[in-house]
Structure formats: structure tokens, C-alpha cells
């Protein structure tokens, strides 16, 4: 039985990549994800991991190398943070459309200006239209687990999509917490080897990414959308398998905490969910019926699961650590999809959003108390007064 160690999120991501026996790693330094690549470089140098370690000259080159490696049939791994994620923007759609299931391990960082390296989710959220699988972890243990689950889901032949495994910079990536690594037999049972479809090959020549006619564009897009209809089932199977083999207890899409009889609920993502959980406990002791729904996946968005989980709640507060300036609610970007998921219910909860934790600030328990107060007022007056509240401003 593997023992519990204290490990940062960065180290856990590197251990996940090592357990998955990745074959090509492409790196470029940017704080805070850079420690993942430092760990992997050490593993490759010591002979613990047999992989090609390539240095890109920028994040765009990084992703391009990963695309080429995956197209040739290697299990590829890369990563970035903050403006590095947006620098590589051009390559995301070709990788998703070309169906190369590489993995990108992102430790969030705010986008410039100025050079703040605190954690905000906007960097990875701004790529959510590109067709990748996208999800967030809330602890170093979950980073390790998500690395393996994402390779299994992404490389499944019903899916074949690249994945982004995201964690909050500093809070998860640099603060150690308890992690239990899987042993080799468990990983081998869970994660089969990568079998590419139509890889670049000398014996069976193929072309990747040719020019197409306009009338071929729509069917291509429709086929990519069909894949996303099939993904949720693969996620459920993979998570159930993972829980069985490794002894964990993950709900495939949403972590539902004390939602059963909740009147107000927080919808949240990432590290601050840990503070939210303890705040829900504290609010319950004071007699407030609070609950929390934590999103594990953003793409594919768990529409029905959210509607079922939050439908009976009277008021939902979406806690956002990302910005979408000029968006419909003039706040973040999760709120739009939460509202859309709840729109078709007969009895809709009141929904508002809270901008908290921006710039990498800690969200204090007192902030959650304030949010609960706002939600309780909304329930009492039976209406949503504002779409968005900025905590501290």
C-alpha cells in the first residue's frame, strides 16, 4: 500500500505524468507551473522516466512540438501558465480538431498587465471554445488523479481529444498537502497504452491538417460536436474505474457538499472550494442551510447534472475567480453557463455571482459569510437585485 506523502501540486502533476509514462515532454519556463517541468527534467535525468525532454523557444513552439509528437503516436505532455496559455492560442484548435490527445498541465496565473503571478482562472477559461477537455483540481491529490483520468478519457477512441488539467497557482501548485501515489499495477490497470488513429508514419503515409472545401467545414464541426455528446459517458466510466482501483470517491462531474437540503448554495471551482467547504460547515452550525457544488469539469459542461443538483435550491451564488469584461453579467464567465443550465427548470433558483479571489487573493471565511448574507437577502426578497457583486470593492 502506498504511503501518504506531503507534496505540492506541481510535484503531484509531475508524478502523474511519470506514472502515465509520457513519452515526449515539451517545456518552457513560466511561474508557477515551471516546477512541474523541473521535476520532470530531474526524473528524466535520473533515468526514472524514459521520455524525450524538448525545450521549446516559447509557448507556441511548446504546443507545436506537442502536436507533432502526438501526431506521430507518442503520449505527449506539456503545460503553461497565465500569458503562456494565451501565447499558444493558435495551436489549440488544430490539436483539438486533429484529435491529438496530448495533455497540458496548467497552473493558473493572472494575465498581464501587470506581471502578477497570483492565481486567476481566466488564462485557461479563455480557451474554452477551442474544443479541449478542461477541468480544475482542488488539491494536489486531485491534480495527480486528474492527470491519470484525463489521459484515460482523452485517449479513449470514442473521444480522442486533448486535455487541460488545471490547478490554482501557488495555492495548489506551491503549498504541499497529503498525496497518496498509486503503484505501478494500479496505474497499469487503469490506463491502457496510447493507440493513435492515423498517426504520421513512414509505412502508411497520411496527411494531417489539409486544406478543405467550405462545404466540408460544417460536417467537420458537427462531428467534433458529436464527440462531446459521447464524452460524458466516458468520463463516468473512467471515474468509476478510478474510484474502484485507487479507492477514491469522486463524483464524475460535480462535488456536491451538503446540497441535499440546502436553501442557498455556492457554485465554485478550484482551490477556494476548500475554504468554501469549511465555511459551509460553519454556516450550518449557525443554522443557515448552505451547500456547495464544486465543478470538476468545465468542458464538457455538466448541464443536466448542475440542473439536477441545484434545482431545488432557492439561491445560488457562483464564486468566480476569472473575468469576462463586458460579458452579459459584467463579471466572470462561469455565471453565464450556470444560468443557462438552470434556465429550463420549472422553478428556477435565483442566481448571482461573486467576484472573489482575483489577482490571487485569498478568499477569507468572512467573505463567504458576506456571500451567504447576500444570498439570504435574495431569498427573503424573492428577487435577484444584481447580477454580480465584487468582494472587497
Amino acid at each position, binding site marked *: 500500500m502506498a504511503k501518504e506523502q506531503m507534496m505540492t501540486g506541481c510535484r503531484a502533476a509531475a508524478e502523474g505524468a511519470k506514472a502515465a509514462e509520457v513519452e515526449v515532454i515539451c517545456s518552457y519556463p513560466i511561474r508557477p507551473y515551471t516546477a512541474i517541468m523541473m521535476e520532470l527534467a530531474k526524473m528524466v535525468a535520473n533515468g526514472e522516466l524514459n521520455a524525450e525532454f524538448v525545450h521549446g523557444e516559447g509557448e507556441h513552439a511548446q504546443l507545436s512540438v506537442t502536436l507533432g509528437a502526438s501526431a506521430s503516436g507518442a503520449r505527449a505532455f506539456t503545460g503553461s501558465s497565465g500569458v503562456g496559455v494565451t501565447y499558444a492560442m493558435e495551436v489549440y484548435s488544430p490539436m483539438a480538431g486533429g484529435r491529438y490527445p496530448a495533455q497540458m498541465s496548467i497552473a493558473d496565473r493572472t494575465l498581464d*498587465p501587470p506581471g502578477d503571478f497570483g492565481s486567476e482562472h481566466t488564462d485557461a477559461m479563455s480557451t474554452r471554445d477551442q474544443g479541449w477537455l478542461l477541468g480544475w483540481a482542488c488539491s494536489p491529490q486531485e491534480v495527480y488523479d486528474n492527470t491519470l483520468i484525463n489521459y484515460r478519457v482523452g485517449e479513449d477512441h470514442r473521444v480522442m481529444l486533448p486535455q487541460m488539467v488545471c490547478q490554482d497557482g501557488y495555492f495548489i501548485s506551491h503549498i504541499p498537502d497529503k498525496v497518496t501515489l498509486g503503484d505501478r499495477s494500479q496505474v497499469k490497470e487503469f490506463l491502457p497504452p496510447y493507440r493513435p488513429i492515423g498517426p504520421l508514419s513512414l509505412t502508411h503515409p497520411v496527411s494531417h491538417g489539409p486544406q478543405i472545401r467550405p462545404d466540408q467545414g460544417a460536417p467537420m464541426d458537427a462531428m467534433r460536436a458529436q464527440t462531446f455528446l459521447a464524452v460524458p459517458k466516458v468520463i463516468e466510466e473512467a471515474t468509476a474505474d478510478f474510484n474502484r482501483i485507487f479507492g477514491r470517491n469522486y463524483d464524475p462531474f460535480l462535488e456536491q457538499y451538503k446540497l441535499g437540503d440546502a436553501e442557498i448554495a455556492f457554485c465554485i471551482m478550484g482551490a477556494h472550494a476548500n475554504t468554501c467547504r469549511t465555511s459551509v460547515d460553519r454556516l450550518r452550525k449557525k443554522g443557515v442551510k448552505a451547500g456547495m457544488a464544486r465543478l470538476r469539469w468545465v468542458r464538457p459542461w455538466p448541464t443536466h447534472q448542475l440542473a439536477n443538483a441545484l434545482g431545488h435550491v432557492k439561491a445560488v451564488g457562483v464564486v468566480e475567480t476569472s473575468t469576462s469584461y463586458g460579458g452579459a453579467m459584467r463579471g466572470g464567465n462561469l455565471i453565464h453557463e450556470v444560468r443557462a443550465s438552470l434556465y429550463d427548470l420549472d422553478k428556477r433558483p435565483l442566481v*448571482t455571482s461573486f467576484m472573489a479571489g482575483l489577482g490571487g487573493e485569498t478568499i477569507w471565511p468572512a467573505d463567504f459569510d458576506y456571500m451567504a448574507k447576500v444570498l439570504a437577502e435574495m431569498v427573503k426578497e424573492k428577487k435577484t*437585485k*444584481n*447580477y454580480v457583486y*465584487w468582494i472587497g*470593492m
Partner: protein
Amino acid sequence: MAKELPGYGTINVPKDREVPFGAVTPAPVCTQNLFQTSNWRIVRPVKDDEKCTRCLICYLSCPDACWIYQEKEDVMEWVAGFCKGCQICINECPTGALTAAPELDFPDGVIRLEKPF
């Protein structure tokens, strides 16, 4: 028929947390008092005026511009507020006029900061 729609709320940035417009900050022209690096040093250069030939090699080689030639008094003046104790001047001095002494031997010379920057 027209139900009152929710508003966007108000956003009030507290005055003590305001940042400059577009994060555009003035750049220092000569010296500035935001990044005083005197507390980086462990040793400081001690000058022997007899051996010093005013060759200005310490002034040329200091990466932080911490040696100034005072023309009227004809001495080299050391800037305590920014010297990081890198000892390049001590190594470069051709006459051995500069020696290293532990900073803790001296009661002052370091600007005591509230927080690191």
C-alpha cells in the same frame, strides 16, 4: 409586463488599493526610494584613503553605482543605501585600498525596512 431586471451593481475600488491607470508607473531618473537594497549585504567595503589612488575603477565596476567621486574633497564616497555587498569593487581595486568588513560590525548604514520587496 416589463419586469424590473437585475442591475449590474456598483464597483468601488477603495482609495488605498487603487493602481495607476493601465498599470503605467513613472520610471526613476536618478535614485529612488522604493527598492532600497542595503539590507541585502552581509559585508561592506571599507576604504583606506592612504592607499586609494582615485583611479575610479571601483566607480566604474560597481553594478549599483555605489561609489561617487567627490571632486571638492578628492575622496571616493560610498553610497550605503544601495550597496548589495557583491565585493566586485574589493576584488577590482588595484592597490588593495578596499577590504571587506562584516556589516554587523557597524551600528548603522542599513535602511531598515518594514517588509521585503
